[in-house]
């Protein structure tokens, strides 16, 4: 194993949507040196690999950023940070224009105005959105991109970030990177729960299966305050292909119907969690399967849909073609996915202030790892990348490197070497991953229990996840890719523990499906119109209930 030590002004961990935009912002506003660590390759990594066919967060004419805040707040039944949502919403349009300048195709009318879909969406051709962003980043001066370097831990001393440690899966190298400031932009966590199709197509999931919650896990381990892990995200998707349903629901107005042909969505409500819950319930009460009613749409709509899906989720188009029937000839069956933790859709993640500063000095967060601001989508992640970048630039002009002690480097190297040493274990990383997904599925509200759970089950889940964490100490990796898989598993296990603790702490049911506690089936505004936060201290997860930050006020850290 080779070792390498690098030094920079700002380290960006994760070259996805938020990370790339942070790099662009730093370069436009300073001459600071930047290193981006990306576990794959920035050209197609992260959520946007296959493309996206709409920008879902834009302030359309006649609307204000506050309207967007109100929408997201309503959808999350109050548990959001309005200050974060507002600072994000104020930048949605400028980042959109920047994307267009970089080359993104956005639909316009004859007067050159963007064509909107509903109140918040723009129509685009987003197949190449990630290559567009990556190309702009690759051209930046002062920016070094380390592709295939997977960061495994922060270096933190006295609650001040010093940098991070990583493994190069192509060059078998252990990296120590010192930085004055760090931006964490690694994305959310998929693969915690048993997926819809656990066999051959186990990775045919909604969220990138390669997003393993690394950023959350590193923050938890470093003692950062984290928020709202109990607000899990469950997507309502086209069955099997797990392709998006928004294009059908909003694009061609397809309603959710049960097998009797009855429109059921109005019965349960239209928030994100209610749409999932309604589908679960219709199935349970014997009126499944459920569909999006596309029968009867026009041939032109058919053709457009086939193309739209090729631009973001090609397997759905292939499915239509293989079945020999277009959406106008058959309704599209829908199902809920396994739960994910993803701060771009719900409010899970780092507890940050409006500058996107975490509770660790010098560590900033943007995109799916940053909590408190759901419904970010692409443009919200860009906006948060921009804010985190500006804050990091400001921070590094006032703070120098805090050198990483050699003892800390040595202990990380010996951990890596331990995993690379052959030992007598019957268990493989894959086995433990499947065991973890089974535990979460059965005892922490997975698909198997219709997303429901009780406290006794959560206790079992916690016990078993701790056991699996123990077992993961004796895993063996034949090469650096397998080493990455071990770290990914351990990240997921760390996130699982926090999710379980948060689900247990919110003793109410505010969101059906997302956090449906059968011991407390009702909403309890008196006690739980609050944030459930946590901090990992001495091996235990300490829960902190915090009062909501009222609209019009900004929260500030008081260290």
């Amino acid at each position, binding site marked *: 194993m080779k070792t390498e030590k690098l030094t920079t002004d700002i380290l960006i961990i994760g070259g996805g949507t938020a990370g790339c935009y942070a790099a662009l912002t730093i370069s436009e506003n300073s001459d600071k040196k930047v290193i981006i660590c990306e*576990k*794959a*390759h920035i*050209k*197609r*990594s*992260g959520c946007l*690999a*296959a493309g996206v*066919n*709409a920008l879902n967060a834009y302030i359309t004419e006649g609307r204000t950023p506050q309207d967007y805040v109100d929408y997201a707040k309503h959808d999350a039944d109050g548990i959001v940070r309005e200050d974060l949502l507002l600072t994000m919403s104020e930048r949605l349009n400028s980042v959109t224009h920047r994307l267009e300048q970089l080359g993104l*195709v*956005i*639909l316009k009318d004859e007067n050159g105005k963007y*064509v909107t*879909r509903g109140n918040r969406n723009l*129509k*685009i*051709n*987003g*197949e*190449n959105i990630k290559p567009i962003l990556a190309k702009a980043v690759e051209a930046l001066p002062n920016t070094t991109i380390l*592709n*295939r370097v997977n960061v495994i831990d922060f270096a933190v001393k006295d609650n001040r970030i010093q940098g991070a440690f990583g493994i190069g*899966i192509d060059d078998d190298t252990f990296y120590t990177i010192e930085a004055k400031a760090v931006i964490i932009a690694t994305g959310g966590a998929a693969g915690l729960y048993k997926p819809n*199709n656990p*066999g*051959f*197509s*186990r*990775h*045919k*999931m909604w969220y*990138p*299966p*390669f997003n393993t919650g690394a950023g959350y896990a590193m923050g938890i381990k470093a003692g950062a305050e984290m928020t709202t892990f109990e607000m899990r995200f469950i997507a309502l998707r086209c069955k*099997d*292909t797990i392709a998006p349903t928004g*294009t059908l629901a*909003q*694009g*061609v107005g397809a309603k959710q119907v049960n097998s009797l042909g009855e429109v059921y969505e109005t019965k349960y409500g239209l928030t994100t969690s209610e749409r999932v819950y309604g589908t679960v319930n219709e199935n349970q009460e014997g009126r499944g399967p459920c569909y999006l009613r596309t029968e009867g749409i026009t041939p032109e*709509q058919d053709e*457009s*849909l*086939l*193309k*739209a899906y*090729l*631009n973001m989720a*090609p*397997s759905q*188009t*292939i*499915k239509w*073609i*293989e*079945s020999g029937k277009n959406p106008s000839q058959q309704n599209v069956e829908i199902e809920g996915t396994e739960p994910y933790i993803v701060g771009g859709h719900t409010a899970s993640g780092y507890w940050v202030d409006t500058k996107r500063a975490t509770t660790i000095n010098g560590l900033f967060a943007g995109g799916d790892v940053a909590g408190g601001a759901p419904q970010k989508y692409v443009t919200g992640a860009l906006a948060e990348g921009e804010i985190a970048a500006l804050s990091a630039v400001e921070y590094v002009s006032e703070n120098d490197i805090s050198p990483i002690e050699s003892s800390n480097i040595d202990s990380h190297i010996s951990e890596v070497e331990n995993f690379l040493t052959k030992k007598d274990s019957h268990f493989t990383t894959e086995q433990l991953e499947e065991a973890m997904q089974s535990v979460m599925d059965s005892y922490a509200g997975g698909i198997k229990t219709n997303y429901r759970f009780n406290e006794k089950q959560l206790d079992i889940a916690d016990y078993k996840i701790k056991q699996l964490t123990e077992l993961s100490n004796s895993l063996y990796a034949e090469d650096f*890719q397998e080493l*990455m898989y071990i770290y990914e598993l351990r990240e997921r296990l760390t996130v699982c523990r926090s999710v379980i603790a948060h689900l247990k702490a919110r003793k109410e049911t505010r969101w059906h499906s997302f956090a449906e506690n059968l011991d407390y089936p009702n909403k309890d505004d008196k006690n739980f119109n609050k944030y459930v936060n946590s901090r990992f201290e001495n091996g235990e997860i300490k829960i902190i209930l915090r009062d909501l930050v009222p609209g019009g006020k900004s929260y500030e850290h008081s260290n």
Partner: protein
Amino acid sequence: MSIAINKQKCVGCGRCRNVCPGSLIKIDESGKAYIKYPKDCWGCTSCIKECPVHAINFYLGADIGGMGSMVHTEKNGDILSWIIEKPQGDTIKIDINQRESNKY
């Protein structure tokens, strides 16, 4: 779903390997690309769009309703063509102009 790489066609340029967000594609001793972890494919089609000689196809697994069609893309200027070869032998081609936005 997963991908299949045609070794006869592959010229070993390594572009698919570079771009895969899961680092699933490797190059074997003969310099040809292969997918080392087929079950871990996300189906993002990034590798397919990179391949200069159209050596990579993707297909739906039988567990999610796949019927055996093989899919690849070809790019000509602004036109990205999706070519779907059905097992019965007929081929469907869908052209997308990348300068044009999605309508829905």
